[in-house]
């Protein structure tokens, strides 16, 4: 709490402008050239050191590192064969490919929610609603249990499901996006709850009896056996990972585009953005719809792997967890969202089947998980891999 005197007000605003200017200039000069995008904000003297080093490397090396990480991610199902550390990483109480698959759809959700919360600064507590919309669209169109009895193949459902998610994002956003921060949070929470009640009570979605026999994604190995089966979750993980890569590319470009800059302006100061001619409601709607679509991809993937959905699948706590992942990773940062999303799924799964002082940690896994969330947030309030610009903004506000 610094005492503010009338004479102290002017220098502080001057200071604020000077700290915000350099990143803006960097961003503009990098426009059009994708390779330069990553060092965005790199000239800021306050960025965390680790990432500036990565950004300072020549593009070839950087791409090589990214390719290496990506390759390692595709090989993760066999990490158990790596001596010494491998078995430590692998989950014990749940088979490792399934755990990896769970991580992959949590990462997808975190990426989508990061667009809404991290980029546009809209607090969405009901994100699971879009996940449910995506998954249920597939189930209703494809499952033989559904009253529509369409029995579409999985792949044909995907574009429809994503379309429905986009539309539901717009539908929810249209009446609610005029609300400010925390009001929006409760309304979105209500939206997720309405979706759940609807899944519980509507005859089309069959409540807790659910919709079964949802077809798996298509494709056969060379010996004629299906790639996507119930026996092995590895191909689903690879599919999820591929979707993640595509989404990361899309989201990264969006962040640097006109839309992304508008989101940023809205997040920092909505009134100022509006005054500068940013159509705030329109861009907030965009954020909602794009976030919803990415969540829909998560739902489509989930429905394809599980083959069965019922109303108990989509608990509110789910979206709260995804939000925790996004913020834990570092709100507004894409690597952060990936790490956070993976952690919220990995930590509880890893704790299954672990013996702590003679008892199974399975029972305590969420207790330990909750404690870890608190500890991470206390020691890294900006998140594990924070977004540079966000850090600059909060430091800036502290000084004001």
């Amino acid at each position, binding site marked *: 709490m610094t005492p503010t005197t009338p004479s102290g007000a002017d220098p502080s605003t001057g200071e604020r402008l000077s700290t915000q200017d350099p990143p803006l200039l960097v961003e503009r000069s990098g426009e059009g050239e994708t390779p330069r995008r990553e060092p965005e904000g790199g000239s800021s003297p306050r960025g965390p050191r680790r990432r500036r080093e990565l950004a300072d490397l020549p593009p070839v090396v950087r791409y090589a590192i990214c390719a290496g990480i990506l390759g390692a991610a595709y090989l993760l199902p066999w990490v158990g064969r790596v001596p010494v550390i491998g078995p430590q990483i692998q989950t014990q109480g749940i088979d490792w490919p399934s755990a990896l698959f769970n991580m992959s759809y949590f990462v997808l959700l975190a990426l989508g929610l990061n667009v809404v919360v991290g980029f546009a600064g809209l607090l969405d507590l009901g994100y699971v609603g879009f996940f449910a919309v995506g998954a249920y669209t597939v189930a209703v169109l494809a499952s033989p249990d559904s009253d529509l009895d369409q029995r579409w193949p999985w792949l044909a459902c995907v574009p429809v499901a994503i379309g429905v998610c986009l539309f539901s994002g717009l539908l929810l956003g249209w*009446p609610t996006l005029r*609300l400010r921060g925390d009001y929006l949070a409760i309304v979105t929470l209500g939206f997720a709850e309405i979706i759940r009640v609807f899944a519980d009570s509507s005859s089309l979605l069959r409540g807790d009896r659910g919709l079964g026999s949802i077809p798996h994604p298509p494709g056969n190995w060379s010996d004629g056996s299906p790639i996507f089966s119930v026996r092995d979750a590895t191909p689903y993980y690879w599919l999820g990972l591929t979707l993640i890569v595509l989404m990361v590319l899309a989201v990264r470009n969006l962040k640097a585009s006109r839309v992304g800059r508008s989101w940023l302006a809205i997040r920092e100061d909505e009134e100022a953005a509006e005054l500068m001619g940013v159509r705030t409601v329109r861009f907030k709607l965009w954020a909602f719809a794009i976030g919803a679509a990415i969540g829909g991809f998560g739902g489509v993937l989930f429905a394809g792997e599980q083959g069965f959905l019922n109303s108990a699948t989509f608990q509110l*706590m789910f979206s709260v*967890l995804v939000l925790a992942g996004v913020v834990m990773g570092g709100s507004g940062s894409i690597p952060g969202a990936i790490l956070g999303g993976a952690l919220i799924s990995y930590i509880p799964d890893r704790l299954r089947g672990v013996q702590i002082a003679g008892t199974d940690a399975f029972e305590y896994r969420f207790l330990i998980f909750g404690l870890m969330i*608190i500890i991470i*947030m206390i020691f890294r*309030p900006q998140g594990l891999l924070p977004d540079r610009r966000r850090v600059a903004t909060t430091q800036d506000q502290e000084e004001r």
Partner: protein
Amino acid sequence: MHFSEFWNDIGELTVTGLSQGSIYALFALGYTLVYGLLRLINFAHSEVFMVGSFAAVGTWKALGLDQNSQTPVLPVVLLLLVAALLVAALASGATALLVELVAYRPLRHRNAPPLAFLITAIGASVVLSEFVGILTHRRPQGVPPLVEPRPLVTIAGTQITNLQVGTIALALVAMFGLDVFIHRSRWGRGIRSVSQDPTTAALMGVNRSQVISLVFLLGGLMAGVAAVMYDLKIGGTRYDAGFALGVKAFTAAVLGGIGNLRGALLGGLCLGLAENYGAGVFGTEWHDVVAFALLVVVLMFRPTGLLGESLGRARA
């Protein structure tokens, strides 16, 4: 649509709605007080309530009563209720203070961004609910039949039970007491001043940390009272009882205008009524949908809730 049944039952629906709504209102106070002061959604408040509901059951159990015992005589019942109210309020208040100390204070010292508070709150909520869940083996705990619901008065053909009258009366008394405390006492003036302008309040000699702790304590006490009423109404409690009810209570707070004490009362009662009327017209399974639809409609026309945001703002 069951309009004819709805008109027949309207009296009963109103009374159940009001008694449900008064539980929401008391519960909502914790959200509204903390929000008014810190602009923070205290996500862990639902678990504060849950701890209170277990404290009450624990008290009765410690005094030798469980769900199979006989209903004791009236003076004993009253004593038991008062004991449970005290223990539950204190347990909830202590939990709220603990959450503030462990999850929020360290972040405040580090000037963390607002979202970080929300996430530690979520963490605290998970920890508390899992902790109680493990202690109780995730089994529901039954409440002894202390109050036999008996029609007390009949107004226009609607029977109102003693439990409903008690719930509504207790909620009104507790809220009136809190309102007086906030608007008349020296401590209350401290709370209002910090919520108006933390920096100036600190310069004027208000101890901000103490005021924040006090607000968490007050919210906890009210949640404890609500928890006892919930126990009696439902006849049991679970380790995850807080979450769903907490969502509703927070909705009530927003509906009335978050940060506004009287708004919490109005919001709670409106939400309780709307839910029950909605259940009467569309069927029980839709009552949540009606509640949230009401919220969206109200916020579209009054973006800061029915009475607007103000803990200190409206009348200083």
